[in-house]
């Protein structure tokens, strides 16, 4: 791994940052006026810029939901016609009567009423039997494979990161892509695009001392002023080289983006009731970003707990209901905001679980599993083929019928109009997932 520094590899990042500054400055005649405008009135110039940016990007949004830990696909989308499912899982098999029928003998787990609603509204596709050759059963490794869309060893960029790199534009908003959570998933690792991670919108702020409310504005404006000066002062840059300019430009950008987010996010009012769960709150944050004209095109959400080696039944049902209710509320909200057709959500997990339940009322790491594609532009229905429990692979696990990269390629080409080979490194047969 080559060492990276400013001096060795600054150019992409810095020109990106510069692009960001240029985009901000474009709203005003010249930087000093812009700076003054920022200090005098936070909302006016920023709102203008955002509208322009949003328009230049179009409104297609991708939301990715990662179910970390390996969600048991067989108890999520249930093959009612597969006898082996019932005999392999005397304790865990779902009662057919409690399930929610899709089509072709497949049914959703009975707790997934929110997502069944989306199926009924023709907003949901389920891709059955998704996997890849020589499946890896380590969480760590399997997630990397899904994140990077590659089984090659190494620590490359993510597939969404590559998509962002491939479509980067100098007018991109600082909020073009966002990760909801504290840790940036590898899917979003990119060369030239920084993706902010936020735990919540209220948390993406510059905090100030509550005991001194009158000091708060002066303090933050002084912060911004010092950063802006270093960012623009050629003499300072000549003396200290790139590091100081980079830090101060980004510091100023941080100030800008938080002001932009806090000003714009205020205008959003949810038009659905979100359940009070961390995951539903994350979706509400996603809706806020999308509806706030910040130019956001990608939102990434991760939820965990699916590694159900023991006592699976209650745990998985609770998790699936949380997911289903959150996604349901998200689309109820988006539909009421007339944005449901703009926003596609894809849901994945690093592997499914074994066909047979284990001795602890759980299931161990397995292989293929369904993927869900929901919302904007989706042609509803079942895709792929449900693997039969009676014809497993050599390790006794479910075979796969569809490579997960076929789903990625379909999103990349059909939703974003980008040649998927440029992002995924090779060509995969697409599925007709989007209209």
């Amino acid at each position, binding site marked *: *791994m*080559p*060492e*990276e*520094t*400013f*001096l*060795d*590899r*600054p150019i992409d*990042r810095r020109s990106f940052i510069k692009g960001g500054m240029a985009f901000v400055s474009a709203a005003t005649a010249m930087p000093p006026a812009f700076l003054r405008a920022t200090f005098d009135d936070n909302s006016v110039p920023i709102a203008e810029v955002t509208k322009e940016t949003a328009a230049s990007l179009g409104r297609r949004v991708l939301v990715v939901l990662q179910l970390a830990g390996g969600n048991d696909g067989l108890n999520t989308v249930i093959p009612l016609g597969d006898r082996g499912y019932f005999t392999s899982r005397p304790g865990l098999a779902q009662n057919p009567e409690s399930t929610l029928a899709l089509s072709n003998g497949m049914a959703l787990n009975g707790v997934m009423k929110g997502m069944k609603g989306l199926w009924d509204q023709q907003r949901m596709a389920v891709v059955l039997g998704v996997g890849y050759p020589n499946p890896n059963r380590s969480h*760590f490794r399997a997630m990397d494979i899904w994140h990077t869309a590659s089984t090659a060893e190494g*620590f490359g960029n993510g597939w969404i990161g590559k998509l962002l790199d491939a479509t980067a534009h100098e007018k991109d908003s*600082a909020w073009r892509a966002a990760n909801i959570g*504290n*840790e*940036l998933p590898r899917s979003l690792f990119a060369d030239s695009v*920084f993706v*902010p*991670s*936020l735990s919540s919108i209220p948390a*993406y*702020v*510059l*905090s*100030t*001392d*509550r*005991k*001194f409310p*009158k*000091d708060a504005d*002066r*303090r933050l404006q*002084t*912060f911004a*002023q*010092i*950063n802006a*000066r*270093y960012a623009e*002062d050629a003499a*300072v840059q000549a*003396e*200290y*080289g790139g*590091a*100081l300019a*980079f*830090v*101060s430009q*980004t*510091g100023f*950008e*941080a100030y800008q*983006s*938080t002001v932009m987010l806090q000003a714009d996010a205020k205008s959003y009012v949810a038009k659905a009731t979100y359940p009070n769960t961390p995951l539903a709150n994350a979706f509400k944050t996603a809706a806020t970003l999308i509806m706030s004209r910040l130019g956001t095109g990608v939102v990434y959400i991760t939820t965990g707990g699916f590694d159900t080696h023991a006592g699976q039944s209650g745990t998985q049902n609770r998790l699936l209901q949380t997911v289903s209710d959150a996604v349901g509320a998200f689309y109820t909200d988006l539909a009421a905001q007339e944005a449901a057709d703009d926003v596609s959500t894809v849901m994945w997990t690093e592997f499914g679980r074994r066909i047979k339940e284990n001795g602890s009322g759980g299931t161990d790491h397995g292989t293929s599993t369904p993927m869900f594609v929901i919302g904007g532009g989706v042609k509803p229905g079942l895709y792929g083929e449900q693997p039969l429990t009676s014809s497993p692979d050599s390790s006794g696990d479910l075979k796969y019928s569809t490579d997960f990269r076929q789903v990625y390629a379909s999103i990349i080409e059909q939703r974003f109009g980008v040649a998927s080979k440029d992002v995924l490194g090779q060509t995969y047969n697409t599925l007709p997932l989007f209209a």
Partner: protein
Amino acid sequence: MALDTDRRKIQHLLRRAGWGYSPSELNEYLALGLKGSIDRLLSPDSVDDSASQALIAGLETDPNQDRGALLAAWHLRIITTKRPLLERMVYFWHDHFATAVSKVESPAFMQAQNDLFRTRAFGRFDEMLTGVARDAAMMVFLDNRLNIRSAPNENFARELMELHTLGEGNVYTEKDIKEAARALTGWRITTEELPKDPMGKTKYPKPTGAVLVANRFDAGKKTFLGVTGNLNDQDVIRALAALPETARFIGRKLWRYFAVAQPTEEMLARTTKAYFDSKYSMREVVRTILTSDEMYSDEAYRWRIKSPVEYVLGYTRSLGLVGATTRTITQTRAMNQTLYEPPGPQGWSKGGADWIASTTMLARANFAYEVTRSDGPKAQVVDAPALLRANGLTVSAAQIVDGLADLIIGGDIDSATRQTLIDYLGGATHFNFAEAQRNGALHGVLYLMLSMPLAHLA
């Protein structure tokens, strides 16, 4: 400008070869002079560190059994140690031999590796390599425990050359990787017996070393870097440690870590000579760098961006916030760095540009807020007015700005920013300490100093 006085040089030294400085720590080193300071930093055994060790021993949860405690113990050590360069080296080795607890899983293995880095920090590089090759955490992380005669695994052999000694594609070939992997086969991790623990609190046994399992070792003929024979791990490590390219690779990394971005050929030759003259002593390589003129040159000054660990723990240490470790863990994580959790075997970003993004800049500014807030928990916040009074900084806005700049960023602040901060405090003529305290400007000026761009540069 720049590093023109002993005071500035020692401040610079403590930013690079230490974790910043509190006023009293700075005074201790100033009394030793530059040369005396370097000698003391390089001789950790001569410095009593029992107070810091006692604090760590007093932690409620066993670092060997719990990831949070594992992290807290190292944070606490960095914040409180009297041997700052030793911890600097442990941090360097942790990054160089990057190993992540998320794959290793056992905090006990990670703690043992951390102890290994501390024991061998300044020792012979070949001995460090041997220690790492047989280290339980590394054997899990780079899969060498799975590397057996019947099914060789090249993961460790490859990184040993690519990341630990030579640099990618330098000197060695793919064939050398395969042959080295064979020579590294057969090692198994050994651990203590877990104590009988009815509460099940002790889950992770401590490692006791590694043993070579004869029937898993490939005893066949191998050819590594041109030498043929029934080679074993020692043969591979000896061969690697003896290469000038290894000395150059490590030397370059240390020059960059401590001094300048682009060491010249002549500088690299100097550290290579120190490496061989001292029989691979890391202490002598580091000494060569810290005592060089280049260490205090304009090129060396403020080019490096602090990592989150350097930024957060450095200022937590300088401000004396010993009770802040739960918070520092959250703070560094929000800035995208968690010790024991490097992003991969290549370690963290080396120049620092990747640390800086809008979110992480907010997190850094919010760190400054959290340590200066007037309503925070006592052990985790600094009382800004008290700090100023304790350092005699009460006279004027200019005196406060200059004094804090010296303490926080090593002085040398440009006149425009200096004026901005003086104005913020009420200006040259209107400043009144009591009033500035009442309206929050004393807390604010410390916040601005800790969050300003220069504070992020080492």
